[in-house]
């Protein structure tokens, strides 16, 4: 099935490569899918947390345990 024919989107007159490049000059192509971006930010935060934890261990910080009141 042609997806676009089944939607409300209409085909428009194709632009030339030169016109497309003019558009790209004024509107630089730097795009990210919002979902992919959110997932990547989460991964970056996870990596940072792991690294901080590793660094803390390497620096000799011991795990703190809660003192349990008798």
């Amino acid at each position, binding site marked *: 099935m042609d997806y676009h024919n089944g939607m409300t989107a209409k085909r*428009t007159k194709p632009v030339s*490569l030169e016109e497309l490049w003019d558009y*790209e000059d004024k*509107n*630089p192509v730097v795009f*990210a*899918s919002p979902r*992919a971006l959110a997932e990547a930010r989460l*991964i970056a935060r996870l990596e940072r947390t792991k690294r901080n934890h590793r660094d803390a261990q390497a620096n000799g910080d011991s795990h703190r345990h809660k003192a349990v009141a008798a």
Partner: protein
Amino acid sequence: MNKFPFQVKAGGLLQTALLRFASKAEIQRYHRSLSPFARQASTIIRDAVEFTRLAAKRWRYYASSGEAAESLANLQRKVQRDSTCEVAFIMVATIRRERHDLPVGLAYCRRTWCHHLALDFLALHPHALGQRERVRGVGSGIVFGLVQLARVLRIPRIWGEATVNSAPFYEKLLAIRPVKDLFIIEAPEMAAIAERQKKISDPILVSPTTGGLP
């Protein structure tokens, strides 16, 4: 077959750029090449740096669980082994400068479980965005490279989430209006994208053995 050529204009001259699968080392090199631009005031350059760094982190995360590819053969092997596997890969676009390859942009893609290609990040390198020597046509060229890749892999659909910033670009590229939060590139759009590049390409680019242009 790992390289997909497209035309750009640099310094007012037409030049062939190449889109290819990035290995781990190439992703690291690309990542390092962003350092001089990290503190630039321009929002678009800061976004380009941030998106690329995040794409690299996301790729590394997928690679750590064996769900990323570093070459076409690698991707094909994974798909042969498991036809419903999801594989991430980064394609890097470069142009030749003196004796080295200058990175000009990248695309982060996923081959989805149903053999479609999802485009998650599409970002020009700050080199290509420079005021002094802008490289024209990298964004649409990368999409043309992905169309060539899709044809080699017999992938019938390239899709992605469009945003308020990217939707007008896809409307122009695909000659479809309106594009809302989803863009889809199927056979008719792939043919139109290839046809547009064919008009300015060197005959070698349109040989069926090099890129599968009609």
